[in-house]
């Protein structure tokens, strides 16, 4: 149990060291792509960010379900924190994708299904945060958040499958698919390492956000303690 706790709450040093490590490897160790050249290195930020965003929204989803079921404010704090961190990672995925797109497709943006659905995903969770911000009552805020956290998650699979459902410019799934991955094993190793490192970063950020939320709730409850 304690081991699990530790794993789920990595210290800042570990998280940042891991990210620095994979960035260094991505920049200097892994060879550039044969077709795309140096720009391709952006993949080691782009792809993990997108996946971590999925992970974060999944956490929001499960925590929201738990909240509606059990009515624990703890679950709501987790949902809110994960959504906020997830929004940041979605933003990173969009920005890095846009840069990558400018370099390879020659354009920042296109009305490609993957890109459009990703933008919608971003807006949904931005709305999630806006709505929470507009509700003063703690319990009601939690309930509204839970509902949107659940409905909003339906868009994650849509983002993922959009490339296969519609013809798309964007890369189809190359790794998360049945059979042998279609990319080089060194690249694959670096990619997986990046995912791991960004997961640590995600957990670190999530915990910091959680602390903040907890402190806020406790400050309110402290008022209720007999002085």
């Amino acid at each position: 149990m304690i081991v699990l706790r530790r794993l789920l709450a990595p210290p800042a040093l570990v998280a940042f060291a891991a990210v620095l490590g994979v960035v260094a490897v991505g920049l200097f160790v892994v060879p550039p792509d044969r077709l795309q050249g140096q720009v391709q290195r952006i993949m080691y930020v782009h792809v993990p960010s997108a996946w971590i965003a999925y992970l974060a929204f999944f956490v929001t989803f499960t925590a929201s379900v738990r909240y509606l079921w059990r009515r624990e404010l703890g679950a709501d704090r987790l949902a809110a924190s994960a959504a906020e961190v997830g929004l940041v990672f979605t933003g990173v995925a969009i920005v890095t994708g846009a840069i990558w797109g400018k370099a390879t497709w020659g354009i920042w943006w296109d009305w490609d299904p993957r890109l459009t659905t990703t933008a919608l995903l971003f807006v949904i969770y931005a709305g999630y945060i806006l709505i929470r911000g507009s509700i003063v009552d703690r319990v009601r805020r939690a309930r509204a958040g839970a509902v949107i956290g659940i409905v909003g998650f339906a868009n994650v699979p849509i983002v993922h499958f959009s490339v296969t459902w519609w013809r798309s410019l964007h890369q189809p799934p190359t790794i998360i698919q049945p059979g042998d991955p279609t990319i080089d094993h060194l690249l694959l190793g670096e990619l997986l390492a990046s995912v791991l490192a960004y997961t640590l970063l995600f957990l670190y950020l999530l915990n910091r956000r959680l602390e903040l939320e907890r402190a806020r709730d406790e400050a309110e409850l402290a008022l209720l303690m007999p002085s």
Partner: protein
Amino acid sequence: MLADVLALATKDLRIELRSPASITGALTLGLVGLVVTGLAAGPDTARLRAIAPGLAWLSVVYAAIAVGERLDRIDRTDDAFSVLWLSVDDRRAIFAGKVLALTAVLWTITLALLGAAVVLLNVEPSPAAIALVPLAGLACLALASATGLVTGVVGVSSQRILLLPVTLLPLLAPTLLAASQATAALIEGRLDSALPWFALLGAQAALFAGLGLLVYESGVALE
């Protein structure tokens, strides 16, 4: 509970119909939206015809948000909601009544709009297009449930007129897409390629309505 649902939906529809400008207003809103969007899109009929189902459904989505916010405000003004909350035995009836009323209004609007789009754009609909009626019903149910759910949890706030579209438009994007695709398929008579979209719409309606019932049962909607 069914009797309560009907009584509540009747109440909403009665208030709605009593205001002379109401349903006509919603309809005109849809039509005007269609025309103006068409205008914004430029005067190329072939291009317009290609994007027509999408535009028509987009107008319906906007109408859903406008009418939904209105139906919800009926109860929120002067705190009528609290009275309902304490009166009904099963609180899910409040949600179900709201969704029923909204679905009825939207269905009417949608059918009128689709008809208008067919006429305005000189489309030759295939006989399969009759399936547009149940399709529209299903899609409107999904739209109505989502709108009822979100207006319910957002509650009263001066920002709701902005918050509702901000949240609902992206949430309803899949519904919009499915409805547009199915409509295009049905007009061209491709019944089989419309079926998966039907299923998708059904799943969405079930998700939104199920969550709404759950949320109202457990008292989420209040305050």
